[in-house]
């Protein structure tokens, strides 16, 4: 049996790696992928708990997370395409016009 703590540790590791990517990477697509990584970390936690608690609801949550991720990816990538077209840059540091 896989100990729940180990599953969670894996989840945490993936999440923190994703967060690190978000904080340190400048390519907006990479940053986006880091978000997906974090979502997956959370999904893993859901599945782990689902197994641990013998409850299927976690699977449903993962299901919904995946659906939302799909929607998010489609819209997000469309935004990236539009951004790239208008600004000719994929560097997230260049996209800072939303400020005072």
């Amino acid at each position, binding site marked *: 049996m896989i100990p729940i703590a180990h599953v969670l540790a894996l989840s945490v590791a993936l999440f923190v790696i994703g*967060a690190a990517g*978000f*904080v*340190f990477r*400048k390519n907006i697509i990479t*940053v986006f992928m880091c978000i997906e990584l974090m979502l997956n970390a959370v999904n893993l936690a859901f599945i782990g708990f689902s197994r641990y608690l013998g409850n299927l609801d976690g699977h449903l949550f993962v299901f919904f997370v995946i659906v939302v991720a799909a929607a998010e990816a489609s819209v997000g990538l469309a935004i990236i395409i539009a951004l790239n077209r208008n600004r000719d840059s994929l560097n*997230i*540091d260049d*996209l*800072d*016009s*939303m*400020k*005072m």
Partner: protein
Amino acid sequence: METLLILMLLPPLAGAAVNGVLGRRLPQAAISLIGCGAAGFSMLFALLCAWTYSISAAQPAPFIHSYFTWIEAGSLRADYALYYDRLTLVMTVTVTVVAFLIHLYSRGYMQHEGGYYRFFTYLNLFLFMMLTLVTAANYPLMFVGWEGVGLCSYLLIGFYFRRPAAADAGKKAFIVTRIGDAGFAVGVALLFWTFGSLNFQETFGRIIALPAGEMQGTMTAVGLLLFLGAVGKSAQIPLYVWLPDAMEGPTPVSALIHAATMVTAGVYLVARSSPIYSHAPQALQVVAVIGCVTAFFAATIALTQNDLKRMLAYSTISQLGYMFIGCGVGAFAAGIFHLMTHACFKSLLFLAAGSVMHALDGELDMRKMGGLRRKMKTTFLTFFIATLAISGVPGLSGFFSKDEILAGAYEGPLGQPWLYWLGAFTAGLTALYMFRGLFLTFFGKSRLTPDLEHHVHESGSKMTVPLLVLALFSIVAGDVSWPKAFGGSESFDRYLEPVFKPSEDSLRAFAPSAAHGPGSDALMIFALLFAGLGILVAYWFYLRSTRLPALLAERFSLLYNTLLHKYYVDEFYDWLIVRPLRVGSEKLLWQECDVGAIDGVMVNGTAKLVDDAGGFLRRIQSGNIRSYASWVLLGATVWLAYVLWPR
């Protein structure tokens, strides 16, 4: 009965709603049909109400019906309830009849004015509010009507709102009467605080049951506060200044609101609240004194006014003063009687003046008129009848009512001789200025400009028919109450006895030994003498030796100028109240409080604080997503640390 009552109230409201919403798109004919129809139905139902009430078994007792609960807050409960007794009957019939005639008249008068639908909307709304005022069964509802008529008055005075004078007059009327309304509101609050109820029936029943002298202080305070409201609404000293300016409104408005109905609301309020005053003789004396002084004071101003409508306005103030004398001496019925007759002849005077104005293309200066009687026969005739009536010529309505008031001033429960003498003298002045106006306008040689000379014409039947009807009323309205001296029985007095008897009785308890004058016959003769003298003087001055008034004005220039400038009251108020208020507002409130304290410290200070804080915090909002992510991470870390901290 309750159906009839509500049917009396609803047509004007419906008319106002229809005209107000759809009027812009309706043809004039439809608007006037709706407006006059509403007023007509209202009159019809008012008469039906009167008839139904008169033949009902419980007749002298008031009919009260509550339609729904309007306000319920704590122990305060105000229903939408209507109150119908003989006083209400007189008021509703007077109001609806005069209003209907003036609606008819307005069809002609307003024909060529803009905002036809607006005018009828306001007029209908006014009628509804006025009826609410006189039929209300409690003070809050009455206050609604009170404020409603004030609002309509404001709207109608400022009807020609593009003219600064009209707009200013509207504001003036609104603000000045507001002072009185504050008094009314405080008085009502005090009443509620004392009795825990604002229903007429309940409150009055408890007041009447009070032994004489009990709670006199409270009653006096309530009475004075309510009278403050009446002073504002009925244009008495010191709050009369708005009424002359209110003549900026269309003439039918002046006739309806500022002569016949709304301004008499104050009188109605005092009469309706007679049980309160019956326990506050001091307050009542104040009413009488103010009424008497106002009557005299306004009459003297009216002597020198050259503007026809302004003269009539001061005349109205003066006559309202009479009504307050009547109420103030405890002769409430006499006051109401005068209210009724005055509604007839004063509205007639205004409408006739409007007819003149119509003919002369808006000219109102009497010095530029003259000799109109040949060209405007009907107008002249009706104006003449009204003048006779107001001057107190025997046989016409004004004679009876004024005589009754003067008799009351001497012999009433709180009557005092000097009230009578000043009143009688004022009656002479009334005759003088009214005939002056008559002579200047309709007699003598024409002083019109040649342009106008051709323009002069008699008004159409739309306007003259109401004039004639009102003239008829002006003659016969007094006949409902022949004085004892003429072998009559003062039947109007007797008719209203169920309403006022308890109050008058309790007043007599305060002044058991009212002055016993020389008897009503003698009183009447004196008054008649004064009136006759006034007419004669007017005839002498303005028809025979027309240079005399100018000479007199020169000789007594100080007096004349004082009168011409209305005792400089407007200037005085300006100096006493308006100027300090403005300067105070500017210097203290605006520059110090507003700019310095509120703007400087509170508004700008807050803004500056926010601005500074924002200036510091905006570094956080760099627009850089990675920074934001770091902040989120910081938050999460701190929160987790807080959660995990061993406790």
